[in-house]
């Protein structure tokens, strides 16, 4: 079912299985037929570990979405609420249960809190009734100095270590990274009674705080997968696409009833073609697709060469695989067409040009005409914020005059209420007035080679291909850590926010890995506060580079792109005024 997870050096299926097992055990605790009431937000993450069939095996007969009012009728013994620990959801549950109680007295109610139960919610529920709870793991958050998500991260890493062995080396950069590492070391002391006897799979853990590299998510990703996410948004491995391009594929049918529902596609490496092109620069995707098309049609041509019964039989046996490949090719050709329409537009080009100017340090200290024009044209606010923040980051803060000008423009055009959003961006460090006269971004750019003039998009030789020139800072840090080591960039590390550190975890004797000649070291890179698809592509590229000697596994609290990231920082008071 999820074979693609087992291929890599680190078998991620173990983690998935562990999560499934926990879920199964939970379901079996409530005997008898069940109905699940879902917090809509959770259906995605749960889809990753459990299909409906699994739930069905455990007597789950009905599924509903959590909403206030009365529950839809269902003849089941147990009602299970799968919810996040949010106070407002507790109120809805209480309402559900009360409206139910009078009808069925023998019914049992359960609540599964994800990622874990919270004291606040329990108290809230206690105001309503007595209950039983149990919990499991996932994560989110940044702005509010809320460390809950960091705590979950640390816990999650402990779980990971319990399954994959203690990670002997921990590196980190940034405030949150330090915090998570501290918590991990602390938890290790707490659990020290039971020494982990698993041979470590990971050699190194690198904790990177998103705060350290604010620039990368703001830039437009230019890999295939990155662009799909930028334009259409990938949610838990699914993307919803406009249906027009897909409808034409059906031959012979009445083409009049165009589907109006968006086309939903699952995207993961189980699909051979997608695995091949997801990390490519979009400009290299076309060539890859046409090459693939030739191979497939050549394969179909084979049938003419098949003479003997045996040969025909062989051909037929390959047919399902070939047909799947053909439909996958058709899908991706359509997606690529959709994307191409956008990337070739003037607006996209202009936007990209400005981004690249900022990243190369051109005129970052003045008000940018393009941004001005975009505001005047009332382009989407998020686009504006992305650009302004980018300019601020690339200039190590904006001159007070420029800073105030942008803010005024935004407030006057998009409304005064965005003053809160601007305040949030300032708190997050994305947007700030220049405090010191020195702009250290050029030094960082030069030392870390963040801009590569001759990025090769077709046959990349450097990670900068993922942004067609810009090499993501976060990944550069990862690369330098592997070779020649962070000591070589001490100066730059000091310029970046937050402390950098190194910790060692003692392994029990006998668990020290004896590395074979030429065997790669494995690093787990954990992005605190999110990672973009392009960054993932860059890391995968590093893994595949023949001489890197490093294998990277990526973990994060969240997958982000500039839009979703800025959105999460926006604060919009609900307007009551009619």
């Amino acid at each position: 079912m999820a074979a693609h997870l087992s291929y890599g050096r680190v078998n991620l299926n173990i983690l998935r299985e562990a999560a499934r097992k926990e879920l199964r055990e939970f379901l079996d605790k409530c005997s008898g037929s069940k109905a699940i009431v879902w917090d809509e937000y959770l259906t995605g993450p749960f889809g990753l570990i459990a299909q409906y069939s699994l739930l069905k095996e455990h007597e789950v007969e009905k599924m509903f979405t959590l909403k206030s009012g009365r529950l839809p009728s269902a003849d089941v013994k147990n009602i299970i609420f799968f919810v996040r620990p949010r106070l407002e959801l507790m109120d809805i549950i209480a309402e559900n249960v009360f409206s139910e109680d009078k009808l069925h007295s023998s019914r049992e109610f359960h609540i599964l809190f994800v990622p874990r139960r919270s004291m606040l919610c329990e108290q809230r529920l206690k105001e309503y009734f007595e209950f039983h709870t149990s919990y499991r793991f996932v994560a989110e958050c940044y702005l509010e100095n809320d460390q809950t998500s960091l705590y979950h991260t640390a816990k999650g890493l402990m779980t990971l270590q319990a399954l994959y062995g203690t990670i002997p080396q921990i590196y980190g950069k940034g405030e949150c990274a330090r915090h998570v590492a501290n918590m991990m070391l602390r938890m290790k002391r707490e659990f020290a009674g039971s020494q982990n006897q698993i041979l470590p799979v990971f050699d190194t853990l690198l904790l990177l705080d998103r705060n350290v590299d604010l620039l990368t998510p703001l830039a437009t990703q230019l890999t295939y997968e990155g662009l799909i996410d930028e334009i259409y948004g990938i949610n838990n491995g699914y993307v919803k696409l406009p249906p027009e391009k897909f409808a034409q594929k059906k031959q012979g049918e009445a083409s009049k009833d165009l589907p109006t529902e968006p086309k939903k596609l699952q995207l993961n490496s189980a699909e051979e073609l997608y695995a091949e092109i997801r990390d490519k620069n979009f400009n290299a995707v076309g060539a890859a697709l046409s090459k693939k098309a030739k191979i497939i049609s050549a394969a179909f041509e084979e049938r003419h060469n098949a003479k003997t019964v045996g040969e025909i039989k062989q051909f037929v046996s390959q047919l399902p695989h070939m047909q799947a490949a053909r439909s996958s090719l058709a899908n991706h050709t359509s997606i690529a067409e959709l994307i191409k329409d956008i990337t070739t537009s003037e607006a996209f080009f202009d936007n990209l040009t400005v981004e690249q100017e900022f990243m190369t340090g051109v005129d970052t200290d003045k008000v940018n005409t393009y941004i001005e024009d975009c505001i005047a044209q009332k382009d989407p606010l998020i686009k504006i914020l992305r650009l302004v923040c980018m300019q601020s980051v690339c200039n190590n803060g904006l001159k007070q005059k420029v800073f105030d000008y942008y803010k005024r423009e935004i407030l006057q055009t998009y409304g005064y209420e965005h003053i809160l959003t601007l305040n949030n961006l300032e708190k997050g460090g994305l947007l700030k007035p220049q405090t010191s006269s020195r702009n250290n971004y050029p030094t960082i750019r030069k030392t870390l080679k963040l801009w590569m003039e001759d990025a090769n998009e077709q046959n990349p030789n450097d990670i900068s291909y993922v942004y067609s020139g810009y090499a993501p800072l976060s990944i550069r840090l990862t690369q330098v850590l592997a070779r020649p080591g962070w000591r070589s960039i001490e100066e730059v590390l000091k310029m970046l926010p937050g402390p950098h550190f190194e910790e060692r975890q003692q392994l029990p004797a006998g668990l020290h890995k004896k590395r074979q000649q030429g065997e790669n070291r494995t690093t787990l890179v954990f992005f605190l506060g999110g990672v973009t698809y392009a960054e993932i592509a860059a890391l995968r590229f590093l893994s595949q580079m023949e001489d890197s000697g490093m294998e990277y596994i990526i973990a994060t609290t969240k997958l982000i792109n500039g839009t979703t990231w800025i959105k999460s920082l926006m604060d919009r008071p609900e307007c009551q005024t009619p």
Partner: protein
Amino acid sequence: MAFITANWNPLGEAFYRKTELYEMSWNLRDGLRDSLVAAAPYGGPIALLREPHRRSPSSRPQLEIYSASGVAIASFPWKSGPVVQLGWTVSDELLCVQEDGSVLIYDLFGSFKRHFSMGQSTKLQVLEAKVFHSPYGTGVAIVTGSSRFTLATNIDELKLRRLPEVPGLQGKPSCWVVLTQDRQTKVLLSNGPELFILDNTSCTAVCPPGLSPQAGNIVHMSVSFSYKYLALFTDTGHLWTGSSHLQEKLSEVDTKKTTTPKQMIWCRRPKSQQPSVVLMWDRLLLVAGVCSDTDPCVLVGELDGVRIVSSTNQELLQEVPLVCQDIFKIASMAPGALLLEAHREYEKSSQKADEYLREIKEQSMLGEAVRQCVEAAGHEYDTNTQKSLLRAASFGKCFLTDFSPDQFVTTCRELRVLNAVRESSVGLPLTHTQFKQMTLQVLIDRLVYRQFYPLAIEICRYLKIPDYQGVSRVLKHWASYEAIARAVCVKVGDSPGVSYSHIAAKAYECGRTELAIKLLDFEARSGEQVPLLLKMKRSQLALSKAVESGDTDLVYTVVSYLKNEMNRGDFFMTLRNQPVALSLYRQFCKLQEQDTLKDLYNQDDDHQELANYYVTASYREKRLESRLSLLQSAVDEYNKAKNEFAAKATEDEMRLLRFQRKLDDEKGAGLLGLSLQATIEALLALGLHKQAEQLYRDFKVPDKRYWWLKLKSLAEKEEWEELEKFSKSKKSPIGYLAFVEVCIKCNNKYEAKKYVSKVAPEQKVKAHLAVSDLEGAADAAIERRNESEMAAVLSRCSASDRLLIDRLNRARTTATKK
């Protein structure tokens, strides 16, 4: 090696051997004469009370406690009444039964723990007492001056049982033992020629089967370790042995000794078919017929033998385990014996090794041979013998393909441990059999009890016992013993898995709160720290611990506790010192208690956040007046926060709102709540140019944006004349290409063309192209000699534009030439 059997004595089929365990470390002036001695089984400690009956206050008897190897553990003068009997409990506590029936309990280190009495009567006189062990624990039995027996089966749950009267008994019986049978504790006693069994309710006369009538009176009796066998000694020197049920007889021996032995103890190993009895007279030790001379000494019955403690040394008398017999018996052909021989030859590099091996292998007994060697090694006390047996086993193992190494490994490990605890300095002379019976857990407990902490830890580590069962537990005990925080922590240090909170909880129970807090500091699990700290009312500390843990739920727990416990001011002050807790609480308030949020910011003088709060609040207000007043508060706070920009922006917003309200009232424009830009747009759409102009000036809208705005809205309304007028009002800050493009967007090429000529040269080509004027575009491009522009024009040309294409191409070549 040959002399291994030298100290073996045959008794019937079996052999007995005496192994010297220790030369006793003690130095006893008077030996063991005139002393009450009690030695605990399983290599337990020895207690010694010299001259228990001496009562002169000037020279009090001394109570001494030694380890089994004679290392002094404690010594103190006996100040209480005369002692009748000493004994050890299963948990190594010393019981001193006094003549008056009170029993004093001391620990291994001679500190008094508690006492109890074996009877209510004050005139109780204990003639004899016995300490016995049963599955229920340690019991005490006494016989009083009034010839009555009293029993306590378990001293930890004291329940005294007075047994029925024995007919015809005067004073104490000639001998008696305590039996545990069928989950009942009974007393077997002899009075002259009669033998009685005394249980809770009755006294029954019994007769041992097969005891010769001429045997005479029973003067001594002994029951085996397991309560299975009984030995009776008569005044004519007859020794009867049989089952303790008195159902069957094992043997009857005439020892030809008419004096009563001082001690008589069963010596047998578990599962042996041939139990034997060790009897001891003043100068004679007799193993059911075999005898040798001895000093005055004490016999200690063990599970699998008898320890003989004398003033100078200590020996273990035991039946030689079968497997050892097999191996070491002279001329034994048992596989183990052959293997041992084979290995010996191998070490001598003799080819005989092969012969022996072949012999074993032919019988396919190699596995058995290895097993025997391993097992025998376990039973041996001498480390050299252990080594040679284990070497032989390991040698034999090499020739076996799938032989489980577990037994070998376990035995090696256990022997290492046993050898360590047998060390004279530790003094636990345990045999392997005893060790197995007593289990490792108990051994560690005993080491802990004897304060051999480092050894206990080493053993735990060596045997890889999980920390929580092993090392941590030892450390916990160690720590609780020391009981002073600093000392504890120096000793316990950073060892993982120690539950300091348990130690601390104990300290708190004892009223030592400060100590408890100090100890808690060392607890790694904050989840454990916090509840106890709350219990001790150290809420501030609890809060900082919760914050430290990073577990936000824990922080919430403390915060909500504090909220209920403290008055609001103190509560806020407490939070103020804990930024993390504060921000968590803020978030909670944001969701639940907006008003509290305001108070919080107020308390902190966080004007920026307070201002933001007012802004958020303003949007919840429906009435404009209240909205404005909230915004005014925001302005004040922004000013206090020195955020001039925000203050100004807010004032602007208020101004805008008032303006919008006025226009809404006047014209019903529906402007309220729109952004400035949207307001101007709306005004222009409504044709209210004057008002739009006013806003533009009042709010200092940048020219560029205003021009864009006006351009677009005029074009949308198709007010072309107005647009043209506007374009001429002054030089356009956004250039004229924008005019062209906006007109085209509104599908008016005619109007668009009007502005092409005004477009700046560098955008001219674009402008011409926008209005599809290829000629003009070509002219402009050629004039500017700009190659890329020419290319752009070319790309728009179709095949029909032959002439144009040629011209452009020519221009291109000249441009490139230059």
